[in-house]
């Protein structure tokens, strides 16, 4: 089950905690992976760790031209593209009343618009090949909201709508589009929390602990697999029970 041998996958934001875990997990199931991110050294280090079947495709997703070039570059490196994981994300938290246009725009650009552009580019080849898996990495706050994250919550909720609309359009071409909504996961994004914030968060998680990147990556493996062929337009919550839908 969940064998990805021969599948070709692009993971954005692969230098982040989640993206790295997703790239490792897809690779571990046999996929060829193209890893994308902004920090070349970190990408090279991950590529070195994975060894074979890995390609580095550097891209800064806040740069429109870089976004447009990414899928063609990954397709060229991999010889096609079966799985796109839109994982790259940034935060620019601020209270709504204080939020600058730039903070809003940059989060929407990287977390939502880049996913739109990359999916649009990837679907073209997937339609021709009559096979595709798009996995968008959302967030629990896209469903629940979160004070101080108006931009981030809007982008992540936007991904859910994008996922459903695209899923409906391309289902007849054997392409599935799904979303994973992680809760609080151990990563550089949650490492910055202080002890009090941490305790406050854990009080809301029935499982009583933060999640691990590998636990989110396992959901990505499933949604990327042949076995998930009949699952589309879905948002899979991986959050230790902190929000139940």
């Amino acid at each position: 089950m969940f064998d990805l041998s021969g599948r070709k996958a692009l993971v954005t934001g692969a230098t982040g905690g989640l993206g790295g875990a997703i790239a490792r997990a897809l690779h571990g199931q046999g996929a060829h992976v193209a890893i994308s991110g902004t920090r070349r050294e970190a990408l090279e280090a991950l590529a070195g760790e994975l060894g074979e079947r890995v390609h580095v495709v550097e891209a800064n997703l806040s740069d429109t031209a870089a976004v447009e070039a990414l899928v063609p570059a990954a397709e060229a490196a991999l010889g096609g593209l079966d799985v796109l994981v839109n994982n790259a994300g940034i935060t620019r938290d601020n209270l709504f009343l204080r939020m600058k246009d730039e903070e809003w725009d940059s989060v929407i650009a990287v977390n939502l618009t880049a996913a739109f552009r990359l999916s649009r580019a990837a679907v073209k080849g997937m339609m021709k090949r009559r096979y595709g898996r798009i996995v968008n990495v959302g967030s629990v706050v896209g469903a629940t909201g979160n004070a101080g994250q108006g931009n981030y919550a809007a982008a992540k909720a936007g991904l859910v709508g994008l996922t459903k609309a695209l899923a409906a359009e391309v289902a007849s071409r054997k392409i599935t589009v799904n979303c994973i909504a992680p809760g609080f996961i151990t990563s550089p994004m949650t490492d910055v929390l202080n002890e009090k914030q941490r305790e406050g968060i854990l009080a809301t998680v029935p499982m009583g602990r933060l999640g691990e990147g590998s636990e989110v990556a396992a959901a990505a493996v499933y949604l990327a697999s042949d076995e998930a062929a009949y699952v589309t337009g879905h948002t899979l919550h991986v959050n230790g029970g902190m929000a139940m839908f």
Partner: protein
Amino acid sequence: MSDIADRVKKIVVDHLGVEPEKVTPNANFIDDLGADSLDTVELVMAFEEEFNVEIPDDAAETIQTVGDAIKFLEKNSG
């Protein structure tokens, strides 16, 4: 029929799985050949590939019949 017309016809038959006799110049992809809107996008992509041309979105919107496609490609390819 010209060479271009034959190639267009073959793409339409292959893609939409329709009887070759139905693929006449006047046949409308959606109304007569059962295509949906995504099929028409795929047909345009297939024409682009076969004839090595780029069909801009505004031109693609005007290609609604087999004859429209042949006419456009006769004018713009090769």
